């Protein structure tokens, strides 16, 4: 039982993770004046769903806050509160509190301080207060309700705001409902609904409720099937202050909307008949069968109009997932159908597809050996299988792809909080949120992006006074954009701040001992210094950034993902950080090289060039016994890959060279010039280059320890295991130093 609850709780939190970004997106649209009624409804539904879910798990703090939030949003929904920037800001802050409360309930975040909740509640209540000028309970029937919107219960009871001055005249609500058999199958009972309706009435007012059970459709006892529902109820209860609203009634039927016919009619002499008509049409859950003979006189709706509405209502009821509150129905209809799948299963699928590709390749090579491929029919069939396999592989990869929106939207909050702390006014503009990348990458992007955006707010954007003095708008803008380019994803962070003060950066670097004094560096090289470990130009360590762990951590994280960071800066105009990342962490573009009979993979991203050098002329021995090779006047340390990796020597030259290049003539050798992220280069001596291919990255550490110079392994088309070289560690071990960049730059300048 506990497990079941845990699972449901997990689903609730997953839902929260989806709803909170939706809320954020909605608020963003409203603040950009792009809001429609549907947007407002969407954010309202998001908060409402969180509240509803939280209530069923007894997450009281969350419920209480969501409730106030919802009430405040209701003012927006009803048009009684105009969304001005101050209110939007309040909503944003409240959203942060809400998501922190979710994190608290999830035990992934620190407990939210009561004072913070209280402060936000007060702000929200101030908004509710404004709306309190208009009678809240009179809202029903007066507010234009959008056509496809099902009202959501809003309980104002527990909150202290002005009671409506003008009370609508007392009227009666007629609630007719007829449960389907499925309602009973679910273990629910009509009794619960009746009790729920009774609870809506004020204490002691229960006698005002009239309940009539409709037994007309009940067959005689002899013919009665035991598991079918035949009863319907008609309940009349008073509406109005202290009584119930139509919304309240809807709320009672929230969880049974799809298995119960429901019709709510206001029996109101004072209101004009047109209002009644509107209600009947809006009542999507009012199917025709509920219009039984004895009550049809109280329903002033032409029969044909009602029946046209029924078709739509039924279709909607069918598309509505079980147990989803009706409030969600509108949204569910718009969304593409989706299911949740455990990521482990997709990983398994990936593995199996990989195996299928290998299996197909080995089938092909076996057929080729048998000489069977002269058979045209066979070749055709094989081609079909090949195409299918490739399509399946792509489809599986696509399953793992997700839009970067999730990460990007989280950044809104980062910027909001950072700018509040730094006392600056910064707007974050997002572009290309729909760009899709592999899920594993998305997960790993959050931390580096957070760091970079905090830095942009803290160091990049100037204070409002300085900005205005420079003739720029007081509000700084950071543009965060994503797009695909040549099989990679480019993420740009562009701010319109002061740019990098290269003089100060250099001074700091010298002060921190990162570069020796008196060094002369180019603009770009100075900019690169901000990625050096232990570098920070901030004079005071602020809460935001400035601990000197920021940018080098960012760079490390991006490199670990197989990406690169570049900076462009224009003084006074702003800074542009560009992250170039692979689309997935599961696949890598590799160059297949041969060395002493082993095939190995070098990531293409780190290959600079492939050159043939003459052993006698280009290779020099330096005093410590190692070798360097001169390629176009640049001396590059030489790594004899076979020796470096202790490959056994006896396997050279066994097979025919079927690759592009091989050290054919004596005195020549092929070197692959590789570069690490810092720009340090080394030349790998290889026997040949065979191919270039996309390889699936497999861990070797699962069943073995880490190998120096090897980052992972892969399985080639013939089913054999091949190692992926870790160029960075190879270069480090060859050059015996880690920070090769600055020294090389010095050497270059000296030359």
């Amino acid at each position, binding site marked *: 039982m506990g497990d079941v609850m845990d699972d449901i709780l997990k689903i609730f939190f997953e839902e929260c993770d989806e709803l909170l970004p939706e809320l954020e997106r909605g608020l963003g649209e409203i603040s950009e004046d792009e809001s429609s009624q549907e947007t407002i409804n969407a954010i309202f539904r998001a908060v409402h769903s969180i509240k509803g879910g939280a209530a069923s798990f007894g997450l009281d703090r969350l419920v209480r806050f969501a409730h106030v939030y919802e009430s405040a949003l209701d003012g927006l929904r009803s048009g009684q509160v105009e969304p001005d920037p101050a209110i939007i800001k309040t909503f944003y802050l409240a959203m942060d509190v809400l998501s922190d409360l979710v994190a608290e309930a999830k035990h992934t975040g620190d407990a939210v301080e009561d004072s913070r909740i209280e402060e936000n509640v007060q702000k929200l209540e101030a908004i509710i207060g404004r709306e309190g000028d208009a009678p809240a309970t009179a809202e029903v029937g007066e507010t234009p309700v959008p056509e496809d919107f099902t009202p959501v219960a809003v309980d104002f009871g527990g909150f202290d705001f002005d009671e409506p001055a003008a009370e609508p005249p007392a009227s009666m609500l007629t609630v007719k409902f007829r449960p389907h058999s499925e309602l009973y199958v679910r273990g629910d009972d009509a009794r619960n609904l009746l009790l729920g309706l009774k609870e809506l009435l004020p204490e002691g007012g229960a006698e005002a409720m009239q309940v009539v059970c409709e037994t007309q459709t009940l067959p005689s006892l002899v013919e009665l099937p035991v598991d079918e529902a035949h009863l319907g109820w008609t309940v009349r209860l008073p509406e109005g202050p202290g009584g119930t609203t139509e919304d309240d009634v809807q709320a009672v039927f929230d969880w049974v909307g799809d298995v119960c016919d429901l019709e709510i009619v206001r029996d109101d002499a004072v209101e004009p008949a047109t209002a009644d008509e509107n209600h009947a049409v809006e009542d999507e859950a009012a199917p025709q069968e509920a219009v039984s003979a004895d009550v049809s006189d109280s329903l002033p709706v032409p029969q044909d109009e009602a029946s046209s509405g029924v078709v739509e209502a039924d279709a909607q009821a069918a598309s509505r997932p079980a147990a989803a509150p009706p409030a969600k129905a509108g949204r569910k209809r718009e969304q593409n159908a989706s299911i949740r799948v455990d990521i482990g299963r997709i990983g398994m699928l990936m*593995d*199996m597809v*990989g*195996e299928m590709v*290998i299996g197909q390749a080995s089938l092909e090579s076996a057929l080729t050996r048998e000489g069977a491929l002269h058979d045209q029919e066979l070749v055709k069939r094989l081609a079909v299988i090949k195409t299918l396999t490739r399509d399946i592989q792509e489809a599986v990869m696509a399953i793992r792809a997700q839009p970067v929106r999730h990460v990007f939207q989280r950044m809104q909050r980062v910027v909001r909080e950072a700018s509040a702390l730094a006392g600056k006014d910064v707007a974050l503009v997002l572009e290309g949120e729909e760009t899709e990348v592999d899920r594993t990458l998305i997960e790993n992007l959050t931390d580096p992006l957070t760091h970079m955006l905090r830095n942009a707010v803290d160091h990049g954007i100037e204070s409002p006074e300085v900005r205005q003095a420079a003739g720029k708008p007081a509000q700084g803008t950071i543009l965060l954009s994503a797009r695909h380019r040549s099989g990679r994803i480019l993420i740009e962070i562009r701010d319109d701040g002061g740019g990098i003060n290269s003089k100060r950066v250099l001074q700091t670097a010298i002060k921190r001992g990162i570069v020796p004094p008196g060094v002369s560096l180019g603009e770009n090289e100075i900019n690169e210094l901000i990625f050096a470990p232990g570098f920070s130009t901030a004079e005071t360590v602020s809460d935001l950034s400035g601990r000197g762990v920021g940018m080098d951590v960012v760079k490390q994280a991006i490199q670990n993902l197989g990406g690169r960071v570049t900076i462009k800066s224009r003084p006074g105009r702003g800074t542009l950080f560009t992250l170039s990342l692979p689309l997935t962490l599961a696949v890598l573009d590799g160059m297949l090289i041969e060395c002493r009979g*082993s095939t190995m993979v070098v990531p293409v991203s780190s290959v600079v060039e492939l050159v043939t050098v003459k052993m006698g002329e280009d290779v020099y021995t330096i005093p410590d016994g190692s070798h360097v090779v001169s390629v176009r006047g640049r001396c590059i340390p030489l790594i004899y890959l076979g020796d*470096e*990796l*202790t*490959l*056994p020597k006896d396997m050279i030259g066994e097979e025919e060279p079927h690759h592009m290049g091989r050290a054919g003539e004596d005195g020549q050798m092929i070197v692959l010039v590789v570069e690490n992220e810092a720009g340090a280069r080394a030349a790998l001596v290889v026997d040949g280059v065979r191919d270039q291919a996309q390889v699936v990255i*497999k*861990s*070797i550490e*699962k*069943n*073995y*320890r*880490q*190998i*120096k*110079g*090897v980052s992972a*392994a892969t*399985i080639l088309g013939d*089913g*054999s*295991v*091949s*190692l992926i070289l870790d160029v960075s560690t190879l270069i480090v071990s060859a050059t015996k130093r880690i920070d090769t960049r600055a020294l090389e730059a010095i050497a270059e300048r000296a030359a």
Partner: protein
Amino acid sequence: MSLNENKQTGRQMNGDTAIPAGGREQMIIFTVGDQRYCIPILSIKEIREFEDPTYLPHCPAYVEGAINIRGNIVTVVNLANYLGTKLEADNERRVVIIIEDGVSRATCGLLVDSVIGITEIVLDEIQPISVDGGAAELSGLVSIDERVIRILRLDTVLARLLGDDAISAAVG
């Protein structure tokens, strides 16, 4: 050649020293050099033909290389080198026994000279051997038909593979 069907209600997933009294356990017997060894049958995932593995750089001498088993990369241990005996030269019958650790789910392959068969061992008949004698690789001895069979400790094999460098340096 999967032996998964030969499941039995044995409790002994690992060939470690904690052997309960009174029980019987099915073991698979194989040869390495001129010695006979056995391991519990339940720790075996499959037995495969030997195929040329990919050499792993900087590996200790007893690591033969890595092979691909349905998309997983599995290290093959040359048991002869590991146990310090001599390998039979040019043996056609040599196979790789793929074992899986019940706890850590780590997998590795053992290159052996030949598999002889399955036998049921009465656990009481196992004679423990002292670790002081330098036999951390073995958990005990048992004699069947006048021949002494050594029981291999699989957890030691896996622990060394997964990177206890101090031990592997001493052995390799």
